[in-house]
């Protein structure tokens, strides 16, 4: 009968896991017989059916057996077998459920407060997890270091995220534990033209990378060989979506395309999976480093290469900096103006990079801390609501506690019961908040510019976190009430002499103060952030940023001749009053060149530089304070003429008047190239307002040395769309290959404060939520007090108190708490916000107005919350409250 070779014993026994399930569910003696029955029945089934069928029937048998516990325990012959846990627990549930329904308002306050708090918590958690997850998907992420470079000239230090061609190969050779290096260089033009069978695309994420790219990083190649995809010159790797865009196909290895201003033909050697959002290395096209002319030279003069080192083990990260310093000074042999290289761990690049000019703008670790703090504060406010309401209503539950104790409940059981109730309410809140989060993530994504999603299966960490948050919140909010409630002495509470305890009231008041402190700090911070942003956006910059249209153009091969034509053509258009060409927008990041006075090398300084034409000052409406404008086409033998700002004059030790007609020399414009200072301008802000104005030299250099230029046009018209069309036509007739994309200077200006704007929006959102939850709690407490004091109020009214008297009486208690909270929180918020403002070179003073405004908002909101309740209580007919006693 036994067809399988398994031993008979195994064959005729029910599966072990089912037995275990049974013994977990039915631990008591009753089940001895049931389990015996089940096992015997299983053997009987095995004589009739095959093992799988018997197993199946057995599973069903076990499951249906579980219900027996609830039916049989009531029969006389089994009663003594069971301790009646089940009945007690179901009674707890029943009471919890009834309590929720009976006090709908309190339950609503508790559950909605918790739900809102937890929703914020989860959204912030998603945001933070995304921020800290950057770059962690690389297998080697803990063994990679990024090397940035700092140039030092006198006082000036310019840390940049890019190193020279030397850094990678040089360090690999000099330091034994550097296993591999990768250099990434962004193609120099802002938009690279890519020609695929005659179709033109403009790409901004076009990089060159060393052939080791796929060894160091874990980007997955879909097609092509990771070992040699980037080895040969002029081979290129596309991302999946780029390949699809170009060829409508993703398996495109071997296809060719033409890219760049030099019309180089590249052969596709691989297709890579699209770069994840949480990678700071973003690219669409990746060409081999060997395609670059500078590939084989090791030079120190140009820092344009993002350099990454792969170490042999993660422990060597600590030694790396020391060894790099040694290598660099060995190379320069103690010369004065030597650069130094700084290595930072790869995982710190996104959040903690000290360098300028990373591939994508990084996040900020401080915001990660601040927002995690806010998330916890909001949850704490919600927990405090629960604690306060639960303890305030203690006298409602006192009789129940007395009765349970009389009937033999242990204190531990009561603690368990009240904790259980908290867990119950928290779970409801948690459930609602999970629903809310899944509905709200799209809006939150709009707000933060991220792509977050609540994906349960992908990250079980979230699930674990939620469970622990649920338990944590329950413990935080439930522990005090349950210990307090379970302490009641039955004899006293049942006699009816129980009163809301005094010590509990103190604690409640303290907690309310904490809640409002948190709310006030958030409100004041929001006000300060907005005030500061407003200040920045309306600050006098030294030039007029409104009504300036900007275009980016690549310098054509004829050295600026057609650019001059373009400029003049645009200037003739209706609605354009001034046009100028410049190398940078005066907003973020200008260039930097070295300059020195006359022949003396010691005065060599690295100074921010912008190349301009003679119309720049008038177009941007910048004021000269000494000297005059550059004279166009001045044939005085020098190829460059200069305008400097006040700070630069100071740097070279001149007063503005002295500076005029002085000469400065810059090697960057060729040996022996002198420039005369024609004028000195006011310090206008050409960088982010986080920094104060640094020295700047405006260079008028014939033909411009930069390959990508900006056209700045001052617009005076109502009919913008017509004007833009005619500009576009002009551009395409003169520079047919240019990708036409315009923007307005003030929009560009605002975009650098995006992260502050976002912070402001998020802050105001969370501040609103915090004060809302705090007010929910206050509302609950106020209404409860009103009910408790209804008799007192009745008597006062009978004795002649007016409605106003009573409203004041009730409000006074709470107003006191709010005032204390204001007293505590104003200094704290002042300190905190001053630190934040410290990051701006131009900042507002936190005046008493902001603090006062914050306080008034809080008081008004709180007053409104309490006022409704107290007026209601005060207007009630005293007879109603006094008739029953």
């Amino acid at each position, binding site marked *: 009968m036994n067809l399988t070779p398994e031993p008979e014993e195994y064959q005729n026994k029910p599966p072990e896991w089912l037995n275990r399930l049974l013994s977990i569910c039915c631990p008591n003696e009753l089940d001895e017989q049931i389990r*015996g*029955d089940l*096992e*015997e*029945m299983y053997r009987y089934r095995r004589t009739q059916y095959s093992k799988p069928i018997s197993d199946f029937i057995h599973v069903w048998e076990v499951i249906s057996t579980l219900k*027996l516990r609830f039916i049989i325990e009531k029969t006389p012959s089994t009663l003594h077998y069971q301790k009646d846990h089940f009945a007690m627990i179901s009674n707890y549930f029943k009471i919890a459920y009834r309590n929720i329904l009976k006090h709908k308002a309190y339950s609503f306050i508790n559950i909605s407060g918790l739900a809102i708090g937890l929703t914020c918590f989860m959204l912030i958690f998603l945001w933070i997890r995304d921020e800290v997850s950057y770059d962690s998907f690389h297998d080697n992420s803990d063994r990679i270091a990024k090397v940035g470079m700092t140039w030092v000239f006198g006082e000036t230090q310019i840390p940049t995220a890019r190193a020279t061609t030397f850094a990678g190969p040089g360090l690999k050779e000099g330091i034994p534990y550097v296993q591999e290096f990768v250099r990434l260089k962004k193609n120099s033009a802002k938009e690279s033209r890519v020609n695929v069978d005659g179709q033109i695309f403009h790409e901004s994420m076009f990089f060159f990378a060393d052939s080791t790219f796929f060894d160091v990083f874990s980007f997955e190649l879909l097609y092509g060989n990771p070992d040699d995809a980037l080895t040969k010159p002029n081979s290129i790797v596309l991302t999946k979506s780029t390949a699809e865009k170009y060829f409508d196909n993703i398996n495109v290895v071997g296809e060719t395309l033409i890219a760049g201003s030099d019309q180089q033909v590249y052969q596709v050697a691989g297709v890579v999976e699209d770069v994840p959002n949480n990678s700071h290395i973003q690219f669409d096209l990746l060409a081999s480093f060997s395609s670059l002319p500078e590939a084989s030279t090791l030079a120190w003069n140009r820092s344009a290469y993002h350099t990454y080192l792969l170490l042999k083990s993660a422990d060597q990260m600590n030694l790396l900096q020391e060894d790099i310093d040694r290598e660099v000074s060995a190379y320069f042999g103690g010369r004065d103006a030597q650069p130094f290289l700084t290595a930072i761990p790869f995982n710190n690049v996104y959040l903690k990079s000290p360098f300028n000019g990373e591939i994508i703008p990084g996040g900020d670790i401080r915001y990660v801390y601040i927002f995690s703090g806010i998330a916890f504060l909001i949850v704490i406010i919600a927990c405090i609501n629960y604690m306060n309401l639960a303890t305030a209503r203690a006298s409602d539950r006192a009789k129940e506690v007395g009765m349970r104790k009389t009937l033999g409940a242990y204190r531990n059981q009561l603690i368990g019961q009240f904790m259980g109730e908290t867990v119950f309410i928290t779970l409801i809140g948690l459930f609602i908040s999970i629903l809310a989060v899944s509905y709200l993530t799209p809006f939150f994504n709009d707000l933060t510019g991220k792509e977050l999603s609540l994906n349960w299966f992908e990250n079980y960490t979230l699930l674990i976190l939620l469970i622990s948050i649920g338990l944590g919140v329950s413990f935080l909010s439930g522990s005090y009430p349950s210990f307090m409630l379970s302490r009641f002495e039955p004899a006293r509470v049942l006699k009816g002499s129980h009163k809301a305890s005094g010590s509990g009231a103190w604690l409640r008041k303290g907690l309310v103060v904490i809640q409002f402190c948190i709310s006030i700090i958030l409100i004041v911070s929001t006000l300060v952030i907005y005030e500061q942003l407003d200040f920045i956006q309306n600050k006098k910059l030294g030039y007029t940023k409104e009504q300036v249209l900007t275009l980016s153009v690549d310098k054509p091969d004829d050295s600026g001749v057609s650019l001059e034509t373009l400029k003049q053509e645009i200037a003739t258009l209706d609605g354009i009053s001034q046009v100028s060409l410049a190398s940078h927008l005066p907003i973020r990041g200008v260039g930097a060149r070295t300059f020195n006075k006359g022949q003396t090398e010691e005065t060599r300084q690295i100074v921010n530089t912008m190349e301009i034409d003679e119309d720049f000052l008038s177009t941007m409406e910048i004021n000269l304070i000494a000297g005059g404008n550059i004279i166009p086409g001045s044939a005085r033998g020098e190829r460059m003429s200069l305008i400097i700002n006040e700070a630069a004059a100071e740097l070279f030790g001149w007063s503005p008047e002295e500076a005029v007609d002085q000469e400065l020399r810059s090697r960057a414009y060729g040996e022996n190239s002198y420039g005369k200072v024609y004028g000195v301008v006011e310090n206008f802000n050409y960088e982010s307002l986080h920094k104060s104005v640094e020295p700047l030299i405006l260079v008028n250099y014939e033909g411009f040395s930069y390959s990508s230029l900006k056209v700045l046009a001052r617009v005076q018209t109502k009919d913008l769309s017509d004007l833009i069309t005619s500009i576009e036509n002009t551009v395409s007739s003169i520079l047919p290959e240019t990708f036409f994309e315009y923007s307005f200077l003030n929009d560009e200006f605002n975009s650098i404060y995006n992260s502050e704007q976002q912070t402001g929006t998020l802050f105001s959102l969370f501040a609103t939520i915090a004060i809302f939850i705090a007010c929910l709690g206050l509302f609950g407490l106020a209404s409860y007090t009103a009910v408790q004091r209804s008799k007192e109020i009745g008597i006062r009214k009978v004795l002649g108190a007016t409605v106003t008297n009573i409203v004041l009486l009730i409000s006074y208690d709470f107003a006191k708490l709010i005032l204390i909270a204001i007293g505590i929180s104003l200094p704290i918020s002042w300190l905190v916000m001053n630190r934040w403002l410290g990051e701006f070179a131009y900042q507002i003073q936190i005046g008493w107005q902001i603090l006062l405004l914050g306080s008034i908002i809080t008081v008004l909101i709180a007053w409104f919350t309490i006022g409704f309740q107290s007026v209601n209580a005060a207007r009630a007919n005293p007879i109603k409250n006094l008739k029953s006693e």
Partner: protein
Amino acid sequence: MKITELGAFEELVLITAVVLGNEAYTVTIAKELETHTGKLMSISSIHTTLYRLEKKGFLISKMGGATSERGGRQKRLFECTEKGMDALEAAKALRASLWKLIPKTS
């Protein structure tokens, strides 16, 4: 008011218990019923019914011996009471008297 104190399934279980005599307990009853009805019986339904009958006083139970085929666990043996026999008789009599009233068709 109930017309009869025994449900249809209860009656079957009770009769089987009487038939099995000293060996009446859940598994034997289930087996017996399966052989006669040809339908799969679940232990839990038999259990429920047995306890219900015990509560009504038609059965009494005692713990019985353990056998190796049930993993050495004790079993609960059931025995029909006088009251149980009376109820069975009554049910049978009622049924018989009703059957007699069915008009004979040719």
